[in-house]
């Protein structure tokens, strides 16, 4: 297996080593399988291949899967797409990919395929044909077809695959999911908004009824599916490669990949790249001691994940405008993040005492909970 890898590397780097034997690539395409299940490492691997491999001569197919994670599209709003607090409690990380499109829930039952090609050879329908042909070959009874929105539907209405792609100066990649045995209940629990009242022009996700291949073809094992896809890719793109296992954590094989993965984990990428949006909502306030209740209006503008402006309309008899003004003032310039806000508001609370402190605390808690 190691020799497979070495030969694959010489090919990836544009070397002349067209070796003998079945493990070599005959010029049509290269099939890789990632051994990592870390979403950031795999996304970084996609970036690395896109930037470092010469795709003019032939394309690459990368097969990968991740431990549970939510992946949003390049121009999406994470607060609108997923419940961040629920994800944190469940230990599910959030990643933003570089391609456009909607939000996906990844887990070990969800196969990802990335078709790398030169910009000239970019052809999404051809790639999807590889998948549908492979499925029909191993399970002729399965009714699958690709739509003009680049989804793959089972039995005409159940979505088993969605696509997204990225075009750079001279290369392209088209990646898509394939639901083999994903946990659909976990999916439903996290794919809903973190907070109400978000208004934005970010790309919205289009929800569709989904299905797992395993439910409709119970004998279809993971390995059988991957082999069929690799073989169909080779048939379609006239190559003779067998799938080579790669490890994105290996810095000697993928120099610089660690740095790309670190960029993808960074707040500035995951949250800071959110297109500007506004939050408008009503806050319900209670005073624990006097049992009084009130409500306030919150209006925030958020740019690059940072609160750009904040307006709090609190009844003056509930809390003096000076205090709600201080709270707004302290939030502006902070990240739109419940924890950041918590640190700032607790510092504000310290000098206050008595009834004002309880009411301010209630207001602070309400504002912090909006941010997820």
């Amino acid at each position, binding site marked *: 297996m190691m020799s497979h890898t070495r030969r694959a590397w010489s090919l990836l780097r544009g070397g002349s080593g067209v070796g003998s034997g079945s493990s070599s690539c005959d010029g049509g395409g290269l099939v890789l399988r990632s051994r990592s299940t870390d979403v950031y490492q795999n996304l970084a691997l996609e970036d690395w291949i896109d930037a470092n491999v010469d795709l003019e001569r032939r394309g690459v197919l990368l097969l990968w899967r991740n431990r549970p994670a939510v992946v949003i599209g390049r121009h999406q709003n994470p607060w609108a797409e997923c419940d961040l607090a629920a994800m944190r409690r469940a230990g599910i990380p959030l990643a933003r990919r570089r391609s*456009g499109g909607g939000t996906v829930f990844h887990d070990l039952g969800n196969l990802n395929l990335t078709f790398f090609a030169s910009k000239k050879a970019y052809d999404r329908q051809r790639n999807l044909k590889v998948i549908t042909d492979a499925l029909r070959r191993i399970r002729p009874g399965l009714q699958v077809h690709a739509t003009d929105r680049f989804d793959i539907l089972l039995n005409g209405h159940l979505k088993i695959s969605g696509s997204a792609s990225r075009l750079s100066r001279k290369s392209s990649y088209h990646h898509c999911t394939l639901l083999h045995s994903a946990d659909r209940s976990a999916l439903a629990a996290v794919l809903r908004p973190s907070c109400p009242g978000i208004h934005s022009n970010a790309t919205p996700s289009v929800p569709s009824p989904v299905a797992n291949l395993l439910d409709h073809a119970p004998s279809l094992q993971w390995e059988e599916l991957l082999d069929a896809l690799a073989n169909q890719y080779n048939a379609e793109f006239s190559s003779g490669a067998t799938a080579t296992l790669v490890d994105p954590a290996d810095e000697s094989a993928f120099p610089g990949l660690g740095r790309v993965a670190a960029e993808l984990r960074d707040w500035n990428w995951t949250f800071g790249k959110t297109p500007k949006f506004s939050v408008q909502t009503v806050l319900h306030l209670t005073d624990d001691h006097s049992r009084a209740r009130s409500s306030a209006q919150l209006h925030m503008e958020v740019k690059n994940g940072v609160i750009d402006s904040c307006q709090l309309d609190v009844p003056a008899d509930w809390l003096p405008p000076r205090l709600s003004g201080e709270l707004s003032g302290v939030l502006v*310039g902070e990240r739109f993040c419940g924890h950041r806000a918590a640190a700032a508001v607790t510092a504000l609370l310290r000098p206050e*005492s008595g009834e004002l402190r309880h009411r301010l605390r209630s207001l602070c808690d309400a504002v912090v909970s909006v941010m997820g």
Partner: protein
Amino acid sequence: VLPVLSVVFQLSQQYRRRCFRLQTFRCVRTLQPLSFRWDRNLQTLSSRTLHTATVSRGPIVQFKLSDIGEGIMEVTVKEWYVKEGDKVSQFDSICEVQSDKASVTITSRYDGVIKKLYYDVDATALVGKPLVDIETESKVIQEEDVVETPAMAREEHTHQEIKGHKTQATPAVRRLAMENNIKLSEVVGTGRDGRILKEDILNFLAKQTGAILPPTLFQEIQTPAPTPAAVAAAAQPAIFTGKDVTEPLKGFHKAMVKTMTAALKIPHFGYCDEVDLSRLVALRAELRSTTEGRGVKLSYMPFFIKAASLGLLHFPILNASVDEGCQNITYKASHNIGLAMDTSQGLLVPNVKNVQLLSVFEIAQELNRLQTLGAAGQLGTSELTGGTFTLSNIGSIGGTYAKPVILPPEVAIGALGKIQILPRFDAGGQMVRAHIMNVSWSADHRIIDGATMCRFSNLWREYLENPACMVLDLK
């Protein structure tokens, strides 16, 4: 006849409508005499002095949105990476557009300065229509500069004979073509007598699709042997241009201003002491393997915190709070002991709730949890509010004595220095190695007097110097 010049006339007509008259004249002026300059350069071969090339402003080019493929005619502009006035190099990213789940990065074809953006974010951009205007840099070599070396200079014109067609080009242009694998016969020369100019090579490259060019190529086409004068002028001046930077205080730091201003209104007094932790060090060493077996890291802090709570049982005034006008004092029932934590965001003080009910092990567990949250930037309001007494382990970073500031609404705080191994005399007069730590307390002098603080500190010290005593009084 000369394609470049006719384009210039077209452009200048367009720009007369758009630009100021001054700019239009400049456009025409820089390009027209170009061919004459090349001739003069070649004739004045005798002078060997090398001067730097100066950059003069080139024409403003409309950079159109190129074909994305798959018959797509329009895209949405999602993000701009540049703004008007920014300098760009060839292959720099200009913007991100999206169409039909495909995200595309548009890169610049030219070096220059962005003059105009045609679309706002979220607007629909049309393929084939202008996206940005770029004022290109044409590195025109002024007449006093000579780039030839003696050997090359003998040839007045350098030409290649390819397929029976004489192509004229200077050595610099030939080198540019050769480095880009371009056959001069394929390039249309727009200089005098069809001579190929550097601009012609650049235009040829721009039209090529899929050309793989290293971005630094064009910077290399400068004077071949830099003289010290050239190097000095070309290199960035290493002078100190330190300017004051002013920015408004925001968020957490702004809130801390309010806290600290209120804190220093409290009349502080300080009290310091030294604690011999030798026995505690031995105890912890014994217990570490047990706690690690339970999955918890044990530091000294859980002992410090528990000892403080035991002390507060005897001196409840240190776990109190006064109201705004210092009219009423509230003795808090819970010992919520805060731990100052240095996080990426700044100084946060989460607290361990109800220490009076917790064992040392439970305190260690809770500390682990708070430290994990703090490191991840995930401390919430429940962790950060409700504290009644604070310990600051500044010694983990360094230092011996400190003057800590009380965090309202609390009335006391302790700062712990680092543990040092120092020589001390034991009861028998022998010199021993002792683990010594300094503690610096601050308290609100309006309600706490020196004697109270001293007695509390002595009790706390007693528990830590003789951990067996702590076992006696543990609740």
